[in-house]
């Protein structure tokens, strides 16, 4: 299959895919959601969530490197059997397809409530999904390149926005750093923050395509630590600017953050439209990568020749999942469910596959 030739993806592109996939809708919701649970200790929650994700990511890569020629869909079906492996694969792909819709929906809701007041939500969703469609028709090399460009771009933008916010921080609001409510809320917040890290599991599809597989650990760490740092800064800045109580009243805390931040000396008076414009890129890369993973995953499960055949077929499903929730509240409930489902799915998968390797003993190693 043309999809997983060696050397289609450089390590830097690999890191870019991870970082871009993670940085997205999470930045919109993170501050309110987590502080609701763990108060000022929210940054610790993010750290914990990130830490768990890093461990899972490294385990996935470890698993992937045992089968340098195959993606998780293929070795999954070989390790267990057609049904279990196939079912796990389908679960992954369906969930990716679903979060594509959810991410686009969250962002569209923000657009409708802030800058595109009169535009119908559906139109915004469709426009984004069509762009995603165009992207998903490309080859993996192009996916890698696009991610590589946006990697630098998104990081610079987020850093710029947040460091400007640093000036507005009031330290009283940030303290106590541990949240002061004990360890449980922080752990709970950690699980909640997991949503912001979702998407790293798509790397399991790309490991066989890497130029130098030895560097997978190194660069995947680079890829995941970048959003982690960005999230922690977001957390501290938004708590420092608004305080925990006020954050609960804000629908889009990060957007409000940019609204209250003065940008001295610029030509434009209000910057949020510009920032939203940059945010489009961040959201796009997340949705597009996840959708691409879903398409490629399905292609491999059903052993199709080309992933292009599926791109258009699956798009209505992504659209459906985007318009399925009735309102913002619904969306958040879906997010909660998806987060738990994904965490469960990833952990179960890793356990099953490692167990399968263990049971089969050396057999698996010999074959690979």
């Amino acid at each position: 299959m043309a999809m997983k030739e060696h050397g289609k993806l450089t390590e830097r592109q690999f890191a870019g895919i991870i970082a871009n996939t993670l940085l997205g809708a999470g930045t919109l919701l993170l501050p309110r959601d987590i502080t609701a649970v763990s108060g000022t200790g929210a940054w610790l929650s993010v750290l914990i969530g990130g830490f768990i994700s890093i461990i899972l990511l490294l385990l996935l890569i470890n698993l992937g490197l045992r089968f340098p020629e195959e993606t998780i869909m293929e070795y999954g079906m070989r390790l267990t059997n057609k049904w279990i492996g196939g079912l796990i694969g389908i679960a992954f792909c369906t969930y990716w397809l679903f979060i594509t819709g959810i991410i686009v929906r969250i962002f569209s809701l923000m657009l409708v409530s802030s800058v595109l007041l009169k535009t119908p939500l559906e139109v915004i969703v469709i426009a984004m999904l069509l762009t995603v469609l165009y992207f998903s028709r490309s080859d993996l090399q192009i996916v890698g390149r696009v991610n590589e460009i946006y990697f630098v771009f998104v990081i610079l933008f987020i850093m710029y926005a947040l460091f400007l916010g640093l000036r507005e921080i009031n330290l009283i609001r940030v303290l106590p750093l541990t949240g002061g409510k004990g360890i449980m809320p922080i752990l709970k917040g950690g699980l909640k923050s997991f949503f912001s890290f979702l998407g790293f599991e798509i790397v399991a599809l790309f490991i066989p395509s890497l130029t130098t597989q030895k560097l997978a650990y190194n660069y995947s760490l680079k890829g995941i630590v970048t959003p982690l740092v960005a999230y922690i800064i977001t957390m501290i800045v938004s708590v420092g600017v608004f305080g925990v109580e006020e954050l609960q009243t804000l629908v889009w805390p990060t957007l409000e953050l940019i609204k209250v931040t003065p940008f001295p000396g610029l030509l434009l008076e209000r910057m949020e439209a510009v920032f939203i414009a940059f945010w489009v890129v961040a959201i796009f890369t997340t949705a597009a990568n996840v959708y691409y993973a879903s398409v490629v995953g399905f292609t491999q499960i059903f052993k199709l020749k080309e992933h292009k055949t599926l791109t258009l077929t699956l798009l209505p499903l992504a659209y459906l999942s985007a318009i399925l929730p009735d309102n913002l509240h619904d969306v958040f409930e879906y997010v909660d469910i998806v987060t738990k489902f994904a965490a469960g799915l990833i952990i179960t998968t890793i356990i099953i596959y490692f167990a399968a390797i263990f049971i089969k003993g050396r057999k698996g190693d010999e074959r690979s």
Partner: protein
Amino acid sequence: MKKKTIRERINEILSNRTDNPGEKAKKEKLGQKLKENLKLIEDIIGFSDDVVVREFQLGGKTGIEAAIIFVDGLTDKQVINENILKPLLIEKFPGDELKDPARSDIIKFIKDKTITINELKIVDQLEKVIDGVLDGDTALLVDGYIDTFLLNTRGWDKRSISEPQSETVVRGPRDSFTENFRTNTALIRRRIKHPALRIKGISIGKYSRTNIAICYIEGLTNKYIVEEIKERISNIDIDNIQSSGTIEQLIEDNHFTPFPQLLSTERPDRVAAFLLEGRVAIIVDGTPFALIAPITISIFLQSAEDYYDRFIIGSFLRVIRLLAIIIAMTLPALYISVISFHPEMIPTQLALAFAGGRAVVPFPAYTEAFIITILMELLREASIRLPDPVGSTIGIVGALIVGEAAVSASIVSPFMVIVVATDTIASFAIPNYSTAIAFRLVKYPLMILATIFGLYGLVLGLIILSIHLAGLKSFGIPYLTPMAPSRLGDLQDTVLRPPIWSLRKRPEHLRTKNEKRFSSTGDDDGYERTR
């Protein structure tokens, strides 16, 4: 050849076997009799008026019949008179050779002792004789011999080397390519006096038989790129090539894109610089533009002059050009989206001024924008087609009078005129013509997207553009190198122009055989490396 009867003629047409001179030239063979050969050639060339056949006898008492054939206008007649006819007529040929015409002594005698032409070939195939004559050579046929001389007497009216028209520089050489193939290759050879410079010729076009040269540096340029280009060019099977633009379209990687994947330049100094970076140049006879391949998008920020001025100035100019590209591409779309969707972004005072200017305009911002940009396109097209003095008048009439009148007639607001004028100026600041057009074209979809979605649409458009660009390739080299896939070593010479001393290596992505620019060892003798 005997005249055909009507019946034969009809049969021939019915059997679809009409005279095909090209095919015939391949099939027929030269004989020993001069008269028959001449008849054959005249028959194939078709007794065209510009083909001159001069029959004569070789000098001395031999009385051997001979003839020269050349095309009037492609040849230098003085050379023919002085260096071919004169010696042949005056020279005393050894008489007794007549008895044994099978020996090619006369041919040898003519070659060694008579003709004072520097480049001559002896051929015995009819096709080569015809091709040579049509290319400006003079054919010399001698009765009793199959061997025919092809004497290089090429010389036709040509434009002299003039200043470049589309790539003028303030500081730097002022010569540019002409329509003449040899002049162009000579201009390159003059700038790279190293034996490693290779200029390989090939003839393309079934009817036009256009000469094409592929230039590269042996032992430096990546041979895979050279082979790929040779392969693609030799695979061209077309009847007519009149411009390097046709070649470009036939060998480019991706056809459905406004972005050029080969650079065309009329400056020999630029070609020389590109060759020594490890790229390949393609020269096409009849076109004053050389094609450069492979290229990446960052080349379109560059002008030849960048390297001639000091690096700070060069860098500054490149940043300005990048700005020009961004403005030319997005400014009208940005204006539409800010006015129609995000008026809160503008500082209050300015917003009031905008509103005041737009108060009398009956159209929404996007209609206004489309009206005036289309007007601008018309003006541009009109001023290119008109002769120079009238062209500038049109520019003045269009820009000043129509713009002014449109504003006072309340069709457009004064800000819109400023926006479009800035946009147009910016598009002229892009150094390469084909790129400027590409970005000018991209502007319209972006404007439409901005009309529908505001900044959101504009960004979606730019995302689509970036995906498109990431998918382009120029002879296997990704278009966005060195940004994506990133090559940190090459990144310094993109938006900024680093100091010459820091450009120690040739571009990495071209995978040259000899990477160092400074004190490069190894291949300096110009001979092929063992590989």
